[in-house]
């Protein structure tokens, strides 16, 4: 399984954590599509705590953390 952790507004309608079977996705971008999250709505994407990009591969046991852009003032 791959654990997906959502933060801030990305939790709306998704909760804080979700799990998806590793065989159903091959990249972080697949996970975004799976949860219907447009790429521009994610500013920080971590795979096991490391900064990553949607095209980066994911595998069983990975933890993906997704943060939305926070930019108001």
């Amino acid at each position, binding site marked *: 399984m791959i654990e997906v952790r959502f*933060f*801030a*507004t990305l*939790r709306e309608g998704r909760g*804080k954590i979700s799990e998806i079977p590793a065989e159903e996705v091959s990249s972080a971008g697949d996970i975004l599509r799976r949860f219907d999250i447009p*790429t*521009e*709505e*994610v*500013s*920080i994407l*971590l795979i096991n705590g490391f*900064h990553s*990009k949607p095209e980066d591969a994911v595998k069983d046991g990975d933890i993906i953390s997704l*943060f*939305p*852009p*926070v*930019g*108001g*003032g």
Partner: protein
Amino acid sequence: MDQRYIRNLGALTEAECALLREKTVLVAGCGGLGGYLIEMLLRLGVGEIRAADGDRFEASNLNRQLLSAPGVLGRSKAEVAAERAAAVNPDVRFVAAPEFVTEANAGQLIRGCDAVLDALDNIASRRMLAKACSDARIPMIHGAICGWSAQAAIILPGDGMLDWIYPEGAALKSKASLSFTPPFCAALQTALCVRLLTGREVEAGKLYIADLLDMEMESLF
């Protein structure tokens, strides 16, 4: 020691208070974050505060911007900030710049600053300010809010931190902001600023993210 700063002692040393009196900062933006940043920096007794904003107050600011009030709608945010500064702490040199921070004026606004506080409201302006700060070798104290969320960081010249905070294509989805999010974020920024200006240990390159809805705080490298 001036009685106005006496309660700083114990948390800051007398030498640190004196050091703050010698520092110059720019607050870029006098809206939600900027209003509270200016208030906190004034009361700390930072030597010179420059405040830049080309905007004017409007009714939609009233839910969260400290310097906004029905009586100042339509007035320059920077000029209202100057009046607040004169009322709160006339010992601070306060320079109001009623203009937006742009590529053309950023260099002049930040010249001689010990730190620049990011109180801007969009990603493009932040990128521009971060580049100007990096070029001038001045640390930028980033802050940003959205809804229940706030984030802050010390960005050192050349560290490229803003590039991972806001990757190419990142877009702001919501303009929502509540009354308590800007002061919370401004407090994080001011604490980072005081640590930086007094020479205390700082963890540059670390982004502090607070979620006030779920009461969580993350720190990311």
